[in-house]
């Protein structure tokens, strides 16, 4: 499947690409990056951080205001014409965030139509439609008019249509938005399968737990700037610190002694004491920390732990809370991001509990059903 004999040369290469929209809105600062075959690359960052703009520029859907993009060996893919453009469109897919479907047609009709527009012959079409329908759990819904589909099913169909021509390079804009847990499983299984078979996947995602588990490369964007790039592990190692926030029953008195004790605990990088609260930066084991406090007769009312993971790195890089999709995937994170943000007041518990909950979580619980 990889078209390039040299596995190291990127499928998509960006050098100094920037985008300014009419009216002078600077959506993307100059960006450099390589995206390889056989990998899932994730673009993460808060809203309006330039993820979609970068994705569109990489996919050749939008022309950058500056810099160069090379996609499958084609320079300036957004300006490609004729056979070159046709080849790019056959080998790549750009799946926009919002479903683009005709509600007056059935799922099967839409899939077959788009497959035909991609040049699939009648013989190959049926198999292609069946393959993507199975990949997204749509088999039982193909004969229904899209008008009758639930929001989640529409999103699945939208993704299936995007992949019906079996592209080598895939650009997806928040494909998991609006999908239930089952839909997200279908999605990531498909993406992982494609990467394993040598396809390249570039995906904008808010699902940081998934990105940490499944992506081979990630770019963190903030206000149009790339603030970190590398494997999720590298980003976590470099930027995440983790934290343990302790809330004592009464204001802490012997601050200096407390600080000295806690700084000796393995894994603690720094200690901050304010009033009745203690912030330990790093990833200390609470089992090591709690006896120290007990020895000082400090009674705790609350303990919060933030592990050093991609969410933590994201929070420190962007100063914003990530969506908590990870919690739904069974990662035991504290409900209150005690270590969040770089500002002391955030560390002091300025966020209300549950603030970081994902709006997508628990949406349309029945959408996977018939």
């Amino acid at each position, binding site marked *: 499947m990889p078209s390039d004999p040299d596995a190291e040369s990127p499928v998509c290469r960006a050098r100094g690409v920037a985008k300014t929209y009419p009216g002078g809105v600077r959506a993307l600062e100059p960006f450099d990056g390589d995206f390889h075959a056989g990998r899932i690359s994730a673009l993460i960052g808060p809203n309006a951080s330039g993820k979609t703009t970068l994705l569109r520029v990489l996919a050749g859907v939008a022309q950058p205001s500056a810099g160069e993009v090379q996609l499958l060996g084609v320079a300036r893919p957004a300006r490609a014409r004729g056979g070159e453009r046709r080849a790019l469109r056959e080998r790549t897919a*750009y799946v926009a965030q*919002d479903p*683009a479907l*005709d509600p*007056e*047609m059935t799922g099967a009709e839409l899939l077959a139509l788009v497959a035909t*527009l991609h*040049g699939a012959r009648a013989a190959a079409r049926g198999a292609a439609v069946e393959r993507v329908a199975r990949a997204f759990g749509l088999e039982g819904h193909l004969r229904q008019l899209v008008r009758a589909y639930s929001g989640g099913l529409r999103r699945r169909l939208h993704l299936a249509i995007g992949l019906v021509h079996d592209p080598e390079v895939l650009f997806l804009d928040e494909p998991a938005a609006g999908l239930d847990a089952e839909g997200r499983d279908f999605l990531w299984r498909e993406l992982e399968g494609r990467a394993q078979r040598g396809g390249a996947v570039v995906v904008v995602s808010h699902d940081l737990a998934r990105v940490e588990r499944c992506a081979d490369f990630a770019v963190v964007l903030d206000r149009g700037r790339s603030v970190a790039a590398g494997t999720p592990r590298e980003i976590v190692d470099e930027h995440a610190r983790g934290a343990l926030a302790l809330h004592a029953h009464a204001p802490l008195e012997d601050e200096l002694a407390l600080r000295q004790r806690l700084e000796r605990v393995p894994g603690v990088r720094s200690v901050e004491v304010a009033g009745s609260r203690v912030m330990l930066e790093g990833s200390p084991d609470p089992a090591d920390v709690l006896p120290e406090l007990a020895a000082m007769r400090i009674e705790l009312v609350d303990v919060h732990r933030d592990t050093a993971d991609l969410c933590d790195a994201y929070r420190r890089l962007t100063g914003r809370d990530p969506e908590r999709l990870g919690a739904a995937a069974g990662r035991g994170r504290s409900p209150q991001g005690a270590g969040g943000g770089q500002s002391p007041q955030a560390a002091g518990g300025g966020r209300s509990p549950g603030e970081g909950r994902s709006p997508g979580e628990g949406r349309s619980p029945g959408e996977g059903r018939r």
Partner: protein
Amino acid sequence: MSRSFPVALAVCRRTWVKTLRRPVVLSFSFVQPVMWMLFFGFLFQRYPLVDLPPGTSYLDFLAPGVCAMTVLFGASQSGISWIRDLQTAFLGRMLQTPAGHRSILAGKVAADVLRLLAQALVVLSIAALLGARVRFAPLEALAALACLALFGTAFSCLSCTIALRARAQEAMAVFVHVVNMPILFTSTALVPKKQMPDWLAAISAWNPLTLTVDAWRGALLFGSAPSLGGQVLPLALLGLLFFPLAAAAMRSAARSE
């Protein structure tokens, strides 16, 4: 060509499937021509017609005109479905594929024109049921049907152009009335040219609907074939003029999304 044909065929089928799924809309399109035949037919029953074979009634004269009118009104609404496709972003989705925008447009226009020809024949059958006499000259009728198809193609493309540029349903209602009514009333669809005031006759000679109606009526009333230079070619040229306009509008609609 080998790539374009399956694309056009698939878009054509899509258009038909969607049309057949709304039988009410389809059947409503027959109400108007029937009403024209009933109202005008009986209103002008005793209207004296000059230059027609003796025994020709006004309904005989009117029936071919109403067939062409069905094509005119149907074709001018052809673009409305693109507005829906713009709203659902599905047009952009189709244009994101390797398929050429011209093939997609051709499929859509072909579907509409073939449907309109079928509708014109149904209207003709209804006219026959109402008592209109039609002469059956197969080859001449086929050639005249081609004129009807060319006229339908041109107007369907014009309608697509307006729809894709205006991007609003409201604009189409205005288009249908502002364009169709003058075209209808300055043509020979309802009144013979000989019985028009001179200025109107001069305008009607340039009216594409007149060319279409005359070709169609010639075949049905007199069994004569349409004139190549006077009717077929001008109508073909009109189609060749409007198709690229619609294709360009389609392209810019995709870009501005």
